[in-house]
């Protein structure tokens, strides 16, 4: 019942299946579909049985847990509620109220990442990468986060290699050219962040072409610095901004059918069933040059950013993504629930989710 505990606790919960793990028994998938549709994702005990290997990484180190707790120092001494307002709490970003609970208010972004092979495929060609740095000092170093999802394609394990290589290549470039100058206080003469991101993706594309010439991959990711999201996107993985009661797809799928929809040549319904609905016109590994969409957006307080592969969004409509995220107590719980939803609907593809939540 580890899964149950985790869901209630809502702190950890990385479903990080790798291709080394055994695929699920074939008979569990149909059972999952039929029961899952009735349980509406609440009956945890059933789900635990249905998805036995959700628990397998029990002993695996959980990165997100330590990182999520890297918030403001929490004051442990009992406090006189009346005097709290006068306390000169270093680093408090908003006025304190007499309610002592608010001292534990999250003041840095928290996030979770989860990836699942799905119910059909024999390997997981998705890759995710996260990196987060938070500091508190007189130097006022802004929070920095890097979050990437890649969905690889290509036979003979080329797809998973491509996705893995590209996330590694992009993250090492970004950390070297954006993060390190930032913490070393050397960023004043740096170029634009979006330009560095584009260079990172171009470098990854070149690496991919030389090391996995037959592989291709999508890449959707963002660098978050001081609450500003700098997004880079190629392919049909997606980034959503969830704020209050609203979900907004921030990226544009580089797929043939999406393009036809945009030009009023196809309806979204026709696109779903279209024989070429999996055809991308832009991806990494396609050619020597790659055009990268970039976007800069301020992430409002308590908003969430959802990065996912098409294994999720093909099966879970936008409105349901919104509701699931809103109903979850933590990013980790939301990631779990989103993956379970996709699995309940057949899990035809690998499913990868990264979810960030901004502080209030």
């Amino acid at each position: 019942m580890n899964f149950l505990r985790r869901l209630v606790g809502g702190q950890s919960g990385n479903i990080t299946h790798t291709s080394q793990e055994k695929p699920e028994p074939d008979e569990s998938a149909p059972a999952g579909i039929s029961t899952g549709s009735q349980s509406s994702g609440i009956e945890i005990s059933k789900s635990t049985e249905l998805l036995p290997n959700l628990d397998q990484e029990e002993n695996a180190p959980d990165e997100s847990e330590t990182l999520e707790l890297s918030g403001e120092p929490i004051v442990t001494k009992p406090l006189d509620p009346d005097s709290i307002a006068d306390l000169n709490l270093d680093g408090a970003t908003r006025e304190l109220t007499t309610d002592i609970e608010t001292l534990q208010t999250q003041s840095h972004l928290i996030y979770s990442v989860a990836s699942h092979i799905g119910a059909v495929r024999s390997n997981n060609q998705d890759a995710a990468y996260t990196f987060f740095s938070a500091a508190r000092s007189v130097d006022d170093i802004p929070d920095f986060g890097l979050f990437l999802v890649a969905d690889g394609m290509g036979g003979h394990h080329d797809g998973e290699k491509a996705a893995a290589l590209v996330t590694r290549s992009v993250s090492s470039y970004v950390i070297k050219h954006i993060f390190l100058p930032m913490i070393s206080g050397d960023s004043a003469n740096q170029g634009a962040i979006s330009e560095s991101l584009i260079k990172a993706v171009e470098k990854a594309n070149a690496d991919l072409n030389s090391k996995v010439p037959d592989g291709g991959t999508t890449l959707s990711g963002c660098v978050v610095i001081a609450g500003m999201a700098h997004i880079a996107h190629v392919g049909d993985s997606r980034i959503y901004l969830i704020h209050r009661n609203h979900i907004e797809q921030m990226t544009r799928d580089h797929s043939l059918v999406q393009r036809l929809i945009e030009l009023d040549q196809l309806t979204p319904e026709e696109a779903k069933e279209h024989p070429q609905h999996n055809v991308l016109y832009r991806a990494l590994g396609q050619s020597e040059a790659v055009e990268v969409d970039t976007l800069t957006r301020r992430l409002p307080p308590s908003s969430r950013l959802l990065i996912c592969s098409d294994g999720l969004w093909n099966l879970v409509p936008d409105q349901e993504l919104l509701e699931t995220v809103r109903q979850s107590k933590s990013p980790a719980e939301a990631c779990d629930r989103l993956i379970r939803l996709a699995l309940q609907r057949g899990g035809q593809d690998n499913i990868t989710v990264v979810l960030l939540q901004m502080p209030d």
Partner: protein
Amino acid sequence: MPETQKFPTRATADTPQESSLQPNFVLHDRYRITGVIGVGGMGTVYQARDLHFTDVKKLVAVKEMHTNTPDPTVRSSMVKTFQREANILATLSHPAIPKIFDFFDLNDRVYIVMEFINGSDLELILQKTKDLPVEKIVDWAIEICDALSYLHSQEPQPIIFRDMKPSNVMIDTLGKVRLIDFGIAKSFDSRVRQHTMIGTEGYSAPEQYRGEISPQSDIFSLGATLHHLLTRKDPRIEAPFSFHERRIGDLNPNAPPALIAIVNKALALNQSDRYPSCAAMKADLEALRSGRSQIALNIGMAGGAGTPLSQPPMPNGSIGTSAFEHISASASIQPRWKFKTEDEIRCSAAAFKDLALVGSYDTNVWAVKLDTGELVWKFPTRGGIASSPIIDETNRNVLFGSEDFHFYALDVAKGRVSWTFSTKDRIRSTARLAHDHVFFGSDDGRLYALNALNGRPIWSFDVGTPVRSRPFVTNELVIVGADSGEVIAVSLSGNRKWSYRTKRSVISSPIVDMNEGVCYIGSSDNFIYCLDANTGFNSWRFRTNGPIIASPTLYKSLVIIGSTDGNLYALNAQSGREKWKFKSEKPIVAASIVHRELLYFGSTDQTLYCLDAESGKELWRFKTGGAITAMPYIIGDLLLIGSMDHHLYALPLVN
């Protein structure tokens, strides 16, 4: 089972094809294989020698089709379809269409024997040449139209080629067009693709993705082929149907406007906006070849509306109807009044109640009646006035700096001094009024914050180099540009928060999107920058071809800014990508203003322009007698604009 497959880069099959016929193998007791011409998705094309002709070396092309299905009924139906279409082709007779000699079914494979064409296909020609003469492309286009026209006129059903693209057009040794690879193979390719693939067909018409096909589909694909030949941009690696984003005129200076118009018409998204027939397209191409030039105009008028592709930018010399209207409209713009000062007007005007106010390089601030332009008062300083007057409604003052080093607050009704403040050098920075304080920079290298009521200094911040940019004030910060090239953010209490260094002086004034907390500013280093207003981190920058003096304007999701390269740029605020640009004849140094979806700006080409802010299309223009260097000011239905011809103009804003 492979999960997803990358789209084959070129000419290899989706599923691995067994190589079948070896050289010297004699097929059907008649065709000795001499080599492989090509390998396609559906099979292999061989070169072979027809052994029935013993005395001459008759070469043929043998096309081998795989019928990849285990179901014998399906297979038999596929073969029948294939045979039927092969039979139709066998009845055709056209110089551009290769003859079919034989058709047979052998060992699960179907073979067509056809004329061997010696030559190169257009894709190969594109690869091997650097520059294709436009005349040659037009000649080929005419021949292709002729062949397609012949196919489309077949009875009882028109034959649709379906797969017009450079690699299916051979140019034979005589330089004549020959179409190869007829769409018959297509009926074999009905498998649903389950795996993600990269790359699209590139040339297919949009309706083909809905399972529809018509002669207009061939016209579209021909348009796509011609676009590729003219621009050398392969549509298979670009976003589908993005031809209009790769303007032929930009990529091929030799392409005449009339040809561009023909190709754009063939590329209309909606079938009804394309040519009704290949014959009609051929007629336009022939008219172009024979030098009759008015077709471009005809096409421009008849181009249809509603889709991006059917509204291509009209090339030079082919002006649409709306442009004629604009010209007549601009002729009718008459100023309601104009007021002559004694020297150049370099700043914007302002208005308060019934007064219009403007500073002039003649050292005066002038106040005139808003409805008539009659003088009410003037106030002389001891230096030219380059900064724009701003109105403090609370204290009923007009505020401005002068090149006499002083900052003035005048009673706006009477033109008398309320207070003055002295700096150590010329003031060219326009002031900003916020939080009951006035913020401005001086050439003495300081940024000042004064109490707006009495002019008492609250603080001054030492920037070190002249500050000519107008500060922007948020709830936390004052952001300003400096001659050092820095963009500097100072807290409301006068402490440095961040700075961002551009490579040349920053005269442009920042603007902050307060919802997003993002600051936009131009620099003399040619770039416009998007900075995080809280931290100064640079999100994106966009390069123009000249120093930027003008200040940006925000309109919906656009950042609009002029450059000394003469263009006004509208950029997507989130990505920094260009949405449109508008070319004026000389450098633009003044900011624009958007009022009711219309954008107004002046250029040093002496003209005030009115554009549709969304599209950048010109609606009207008004010519003054001198360069315009400041932003228009709009009050009610009047637009006030000063010019270096010494005049302040009041133009009526009419719909």
